[in-house]
């Protein structure tokens, strides 16, 4: 019997995923464990492995399609088996091909001659799908929208430019907005209010039951769908989904907060000593984690944050969200771009636990398998971004809004230090760059916090 492959649900708040590439096409034979297709959410990519052996009978979507989770994607079975009944309502079965014999295995299609693509018979049963949209393929900015869709978009804070119309002649109709609203999750009051001002779209909901909060909002700018002048001088490369998201959230951050950066050096002798000790302990098998300089810095930051709760916060424009725990975000550079996995309740971890969690998160991000819910900026209460490994001394990190601040950690450079009594010596210094949202925090408090971080680094006590 033919087996149907569905789009897996990755994370609580994920409503749909985009197929990055189908690795198999209709007619290919498939073994258990073969990669069928790659797909991505806003924050992560995944690969779907085949659970069965057989031949690909049908693929209902094409590369780049956004597919609601749990929706049928493809059918694998024995040649000759029927598959039409698995077609999602409103979706035509895809076969990739310009080949004349586009459905070599379709039992209803003659084996020779040019045959037009077969439209999948509609699902006969009265199903909800018919009144819910087929997957919007491409949003066209400025597409016509019905008044009801517009009203609904306003009520549900959906940006119509980002919605693909499924109505006649590409019109955005109510169901498209409903689907978009469902996909973006519930909106918090603040998020609604902010979106009403325009220019923002909801990101992945980070609140309860996927509620989109103010901080999940992202600035939307219409994509260029047509760039003139492509030729020898340059080539036009479309941004990846991930890239677009990063672009939106970075732009959003700078547009919607009052950021400035203070820089301060911390004497790194203490943590260098600790690092040495930790390395030895690892080698001797006393501990099972490779505690890095960055881990120590993060540990120090957590301690400082506990003393400065205002910094461990979200700025909501007209209110503050002061966290009782430290949900620490840690920027990770991956092939797909910047990711900021969050370690929930990081303040409850000892240095070994923290080190392990940070390592695990970074690895998962690089593999693209980190829980998307914990990649949302609202998930974190403070972020640390470390560029020390690249030799950067100072930089101006961009806040992961709605967080109130971010700490940039630079490389360690030897600097002269007055050791007292006219004695100067070169001492290793760690560059600390604190970007904070001046709407939330004044310069004095920010400076005191930054100093506290330095002090914690310089006097860190850890046990292992």
């Amino acid at each position, binding site marked *: 019997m033919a087996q149907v492959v569905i789009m897996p649900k990755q994370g609580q708040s994920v409503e749909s995923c985009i197929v990055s590439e189908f690795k198999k096409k209709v007619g290919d034979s498939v073994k258990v464990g073969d990669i069928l297709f790659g797909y991505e959410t806003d924050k992560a990519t995944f690969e779907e492995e085949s659970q069965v052996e057989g031949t690909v009978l049908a693929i209902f979507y094409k590369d780049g399609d956004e597919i609601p989770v749990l929706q049928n994607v493809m059918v694998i079975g024995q040649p000759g088996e029927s598959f039409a009944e698995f077609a999602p309502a409103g979706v035509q079965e895809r076969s990739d091909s310009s080949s004349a014999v586009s459905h070599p295995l379709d039992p209803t299609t003659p084996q020779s001659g040019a045959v037009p693509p077969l439209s999948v*018979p509609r699902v006969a049963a009265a199903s909800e799908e*018919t*009144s819910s949209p087929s997957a919007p393929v491409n949003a066209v900015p400025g597409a016509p929208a019905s*008044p009801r869709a*517009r*009203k609904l978009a306003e009520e549900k804070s959906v940006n119509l430019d980002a919605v693909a119309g499924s109505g*006649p002649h590409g019109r955005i109709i109510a169901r498209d907005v409903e689907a978009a609203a469902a996909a973006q999750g519930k909106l918090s009051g603040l998020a609604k209010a902010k979106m009403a001002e325009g220019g923002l779209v909801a990101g992945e909901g980070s609140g309860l039951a996927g509620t989109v909060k103010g901080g999940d909002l992202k600035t939307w700018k219409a994509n260029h769908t047509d760039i003139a002048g492509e030729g020898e001088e340059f080539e036009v490369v479309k941004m990846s989904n991930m890239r677009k998201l990063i672009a939106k959230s970075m732009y959003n951050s700078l547009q919607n907060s009052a950021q400035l950066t203070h820089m301060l050096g911390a004497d790194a002798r203490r943590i260098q000593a600790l690092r040495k000790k930790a390395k030895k302990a690892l080698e001797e098998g006393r501990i099972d984690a490779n505690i890095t300089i960055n881990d120590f810095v993060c540990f120090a930051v957590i301690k400082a944050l506990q003393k400065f709760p205002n910094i461990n916060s979200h700025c909501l424009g007209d209110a503050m969200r002061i966290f009782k725990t430290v949900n620490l975000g840690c920027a990770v550079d991956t092939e797909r771009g910047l990711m900021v996995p969050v370690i929930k309740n990081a303040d409850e971890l000892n240095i070994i636990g923290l080190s392990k969690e940070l390592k695990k998160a970074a690895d998962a991000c690089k593999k693209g398998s980190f829980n998307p819910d914990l990649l949302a900026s609202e998930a974190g209460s403070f972020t640390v971004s470390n560029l020390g490994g690249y030799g950067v001394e100072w930089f101006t990190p961009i806040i992961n809004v709605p967080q109130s601040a971010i700490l940039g950690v630079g490389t360690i450079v030897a600097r002269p230090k007055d050791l007292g009594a006219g004695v100067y010596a070169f001492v290793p210094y760690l560059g600390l760059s604190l970007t904070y949202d001046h709407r939330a925090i004044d310069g004095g408090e920010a400076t005191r916090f930054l100093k506290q971080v330095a002090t914690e680094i310089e006097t860190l006590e850890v046990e292992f």
Partner: protein
Amino acid sequence: MPKSLYIDPEVTLRPQEHEIKFPKIPVMQYKKTVKEELKEGNFSKEDLLHIYRDMFTIREFETMLNLVKTTGGYNGVEYNNPGPAHLSAGQEAAAVGMAYNLDTDDFIFGSHRSHGEILAKGLRSIQILPEKELKKIMEEFWGGATLEVAKKGYKGKDTKELGIRFLIYGAIAEIFARTTGFNKGLGGSMHTFFTPFGIYPNNAIVGGSGSIAVGAALYKKVNRKKGIVVANLGDGAMARGPVLEGMTFASMDQFHTLWEGDMKGGLPVLINVMDNQYAMGGQTKGETMGYTFPARLGAGFNPEAWHAERVNGYDPLAVIDAFRRKKALLEKKEGPALLDVVTYRYSGHSPSDQSSYRTKEEIAAWEAEDCIVAFGKKLIEAGVATQKDLDAIQAKMKEIIFEMYKLAIDPELSPRMDLVKENELLGDMMFSNGSVDSFGDAKPDVLMPLEENPRVKQIAGKSRFYLDKDGKPVSSMKMYNFRDGVFEAVVDRFYKDSSLVAYGEENREWGGAFAVYRGLTEALPYHRLFNSPIAEAAIIGTAIGYAMCGGRVIPEIMYCDFLGCCGDEIFNQLPKWQAMSGNILKMPVVVRVSVGSKYGAQHSQDWTSLCTHIPGLKVVFPVTPYDAKGLMNSALQGTDPVIFFESQRLYGIGEQFHEGGVPEGYYEIPFGEPDVKREGKDVTFLTIGATLYRALKAADELKEKYGMEAEVIDARTLVPFNYEKVIESVKKTGRIIIAGDASARGSFLNDLAANIADLCFDYLDAAPVVLGSRNWITPCHELEEAFFPQPSWFLDVINEKMVPLPGYVPTGNFTSAQQILRAKKGV
């Protein structure tokens, strides 16, 4: 087609039946002098002086209006009257002679040129009414508002003189559109009437009174009311359909052959032709007509030639003589009658008419015979009065008219309605919205107790829901159907309201062409239910006259298409009189109109839209037995004109919606409330008429194949219409198709669509879509599916204009390009 009248070939095919004789028509037979009349005691000196006074009053009144129109003032007091003034100077003897023998139980109807007749009848009524009665009429009229102004500055104690001031003031105020006018200023010059004096509407449509007056006579006869009815028409009006059809109706043999007891005999109606020689600029004799004299027309209608006479309308006594004889004849039930009163119109059709079609010599020659001057001379010759006496009468009347003129143009004393400030004032006058059990005060004439009626017994054995107790369909013979619903409401009212009559083309033995009235023949005498001639203008026109006088009536138009035959009555008369009378008149007329199908281009049109376009009509179109009975009950309880549409497709249909079936007892369904026949959430179908059932089929298919649920709403009433339920539905569904069988272009469907688009704009997921019939002739039955909206059309437009249906293959072309193309072609 009564069986009692045997059409015998032995007679019909033999020569004696072929011999047609015409009676001799008397012409100018009055020859008496004033002295002879005095000697015979037919008039007192005072009577003769009143005749003179009344004629002069009319002349001065018309002179005043002519001066206002042509010089912008009267006696040096400026006034601008932008409205019409069709003056009757020259016709005074005809008017006064007409009115002399009439009392307030006798009704006159008029034309656009009726100031003279109104004043003559009014002055005569004032003369003959007991003072107390006259006073009461004046004091009660508009709560005394008109009298209040008319008596300003009047120091005398003479009720009759006050009456004259009241009459002249009320008429001028009406002509000048003042709220103190006889019809609150809503009628104007061409509709200046005063029913307490028996002055019924004059009419701006030439010949309009021709059928209405006949209906008034029918009212008098059926309801046993005193008095005769006079229709004052011009010689030009004798060309008009309503006049000829009205005369046909009044000539019906059945009044003598079939109507029984005290109902036997002719209608008390007199067509009085004010034969002033001109119809606009056309001369009826020698140019635009062929009758030579209007008196000839009577010969075409019945063997008595309508007792027609041609009378010298320049001698008031000749006209009085003729009217005395005709009135007696009508009272003996030997009517109808026709008078051709020869007169002459000095003024043009209106003050803008330069009389380019006649010579000055002609006018001068008639002026030389002027009826007032001539009558004055006769009075002097007979010793009734001196020139001084006549001059005194003239001075007195001039004085009164001038005073009343000044009062009528005073904006404080005689204000106009402020329709800008009080925006809804006139709107609230369009319908009377009354609830009246019975317009008659007598016990209804019926032939048997209702429960013994064979139809009533038959219905008692029927299932009042389309399914039986076990949920199985009831056989059509045992199923209570649409025609039963209409019948129950109608028969109920016949037993409640003695004034109710019903007629149309075949209403009696057949029970109507569609058997709705089967059983009524057994229940009702002829005078309450009868077959009319094939004369739609008369069917509706007489109904209007009947209702105007205070009766309730159900005229029937057998096919909707025939509305065209009574266009004037439906569009110009029926809807207008309630508001135009300042709400003095009520119009309880329920016009039953059957909407056909199967019968091609001239028998299958849905013209509901035409009726909705006309302000003043209520328009209903029930399509279920429950709605038919409830809405017919409301129509028959009301006081407004209702066009009650019935679909020929549905006469046999059972009740499928109302739980428990159609109630046996009396109930009303209020007008204006659309009814949700099926609930749904994805799209709304709002239907007019029989399209409901096709919409339901479409809803079934939509659900079965595409999982979409349609909410189906039956408009039921078109005017009035409450949008609230529809708005609620559209808020839910976001989509609406408005469908009906009328040709789409210019139909009420578009009106609904426009209003819904307006009222529901933010809730719409697609523009409202109109599904009407094609803008073609209705093809033959076999081809009708291409013409009337079909279930597949609903799916087509949903797919094309609202939400693409997966895998749907359209049957029709509803693309925008096609829409534009069709409009370009005008189809």
